[in-house]
């Protein structure tokens, strides 16, 4: 008995597939475009610079992806990272704490903020947007107060170790970039291949269904915010290693750039759909545009303008594909 017709809704599959490869096509198109505009764009050293510029926001975007997959959003990501950077540099440079311990305490601080975000979202059921808007300001204020709004300099060398480089066939590679890529690979593995990863998607996609199948929904969401906090701490370390200082005003562009990267990478702001590798592509798109436009001598204001347009395009695609899926 074939009571059930086979529904071949091909257009949905096409849209879905486009959502997966679309960001990659956009990235390649941008690369081709800039390669035709500037001879320097496609050189190994320039691409290495793009990766360096992307590594901090790239690691933040991993945490942001996890949060957005649960249908949340974390507006505090950049300022929490700045707090972590100030904590670890102050401890190491001014209070004589050993570098490893300073890093642990710094990552602890960002993790604490992740825990705070997660508890407010899961225990009191506050909207993530409002919670993280609040913690954005709290983290920013604490950072300014603790650092007296002064940049922390004269860091021990070990603090900048991840800013060190090695060479692959004549191209300079920063250790921090390797850390970022490893974190992407690890997160992609967990999201795709483990039950915990699939539960993140289920919780974001249909929290009620997830709960009814016995998934501890609040625990999944809390874990995601805490992990995001850990990742912001690692991003803080990369930021310190890249700039060589602890900057209390760091993370301001990363705050929105991380969300931009996630959205450009095809992850839905409605939760439950997307991939972390997409966010890497999204971060690279932002990085390539910044770099390429700079090489072309375009003012940074236009870079911001173009980033804004890209984000709206990406969200519009997401919304339209959802409508198609109904």
């Amino acid at each position: 008995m074939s009571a059930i017709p086979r529904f071949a809704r091909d257009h949905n599959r096409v849209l879905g597939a486009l959502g997966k490869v679309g960001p990659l096509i956009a990235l390649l198109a941008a690369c081709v475009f800039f390669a035709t505009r500037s001879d320097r764009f496609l050189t190994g050293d320039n691409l290495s610079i793009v990766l360096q510029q992307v590594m901090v926001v790239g690691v933040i975007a991993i945490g942001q992806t996890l949060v957005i997959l649960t249908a949340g959003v974390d507006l505090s990501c950049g300022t929490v990272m700045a707090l972590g950077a100030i904590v670890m540099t102050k401890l190491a440079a001014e209070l004589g704490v050993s570098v490893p311990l300073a890093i642990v305490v710094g990552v602890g601080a960002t993790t604490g903020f992740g825990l705070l975000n997660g508890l407010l979202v899961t225990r009191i059921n506050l909207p993530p947007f409002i919670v993280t808007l609040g913690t954005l300001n709290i983290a920013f204020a604490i950072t300014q107060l603790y650092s007296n709004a002064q940049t922390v300099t004269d860091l021990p060398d070990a603090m900048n170790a991840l800013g060190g480089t090695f060479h692959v066939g004549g191209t300079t590679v920063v250790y921090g970039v390797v850390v970022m890529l490893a974190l992407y690979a690890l997160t992609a593995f967990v999201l795709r291949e483990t039950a915990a990863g699939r539960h993140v998607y289920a919780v974001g996609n249909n929290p009620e269904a997830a709960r009814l199948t016995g998934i501890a929904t609040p625990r999944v969401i809390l874990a995601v915010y805490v992990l995001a906090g850990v990742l912001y701490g690692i991003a803080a370390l990369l930021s310190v290693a890249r700039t060589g200082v602890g900057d209390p005003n760091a993370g301001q562009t990363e705050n929105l750039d991380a969300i931009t990267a996630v959205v450009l990478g095809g992850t839905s702001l409605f939760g439950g759909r997307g991939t972390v590798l997409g966010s890497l592509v999204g971060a690279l798109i932002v990085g390539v545009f910044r770099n390429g436009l700079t090489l072309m001598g375009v003012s940074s204001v236009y870079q911001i303008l173009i980033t804004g347009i890209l984000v709206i395009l990406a969200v519009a695609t997401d919304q339209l594909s959802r409508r198609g899926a109904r």
Partner: protein
Amino acid sequence: MTAGIATTLVMEARGLVKRYGHVTALDDADFELRAAEILAVIGDNGAGKSTLIKALSGALVPDAGEIRLDGSVVHFRTPMDARRAGIETVYQDLAVAPALSIAENLYLGREVRRPGVLGSVFRMLDKKRMREDSTEHMRDLRIEIGSMGQAVETLSGGQRQGVAVARSAAFARHVVIMDEPTAALGVKQSSMVLDLIRRVRDRGLSVVLISHDMPHVFEIADRIHVARLGKRIAVLNPKKISMSDTVALMTGALTPDEVAPDALA
């Protein structure tokens, strides 16, 4: 055929009471479910049928009374307790995650990990096995869906409900409770889900079907449990009673004494 002698009860409840403030939702209610039968539970709004179902599925704890499963007393505090005891519930609002695949939905919350180190240390899922087992299971229930890797959102409403029913049937050991499984569906898809419910019963599971839809109830129920004012007022044999008399009992226009004795099951 006299009840209670040759038939074994899979699940039974005696004297269930549940009060919400001044409202008594369950007032000394009884419940009996036989092996491999479809028992429809019907009742007007406020008759206590959803409270009864919640008590049986662990969604609430009754104030008094006892529930037995396969003869031994059980105390469910959460739906997970009921599920561990082998009772699965299908909810009317199509509780599936649309972006996840069919196989992922079937195994959501009960994922199978790979054997060996890959599973125990790296926690890797055995996607291939889950997909193959899903295919086989769906074929057993004669739910025709192309690929188990397909996202549930690409399915029709009836097929989605098919996935929800298949999930329950796959993991239930004793009872599948279905709360208005056809309420959101069209005619053709409803009949497909009704066929599916029969097949679930034919595999030896007992099905509790909560429904407002009298034609559906009469089409597939083996017996009909009529809830009224927090009690079970009658259990009917749908082959021996008319739909209008059933509705009259449900609404109180007819009392159980006025029904022909052989219509009671």
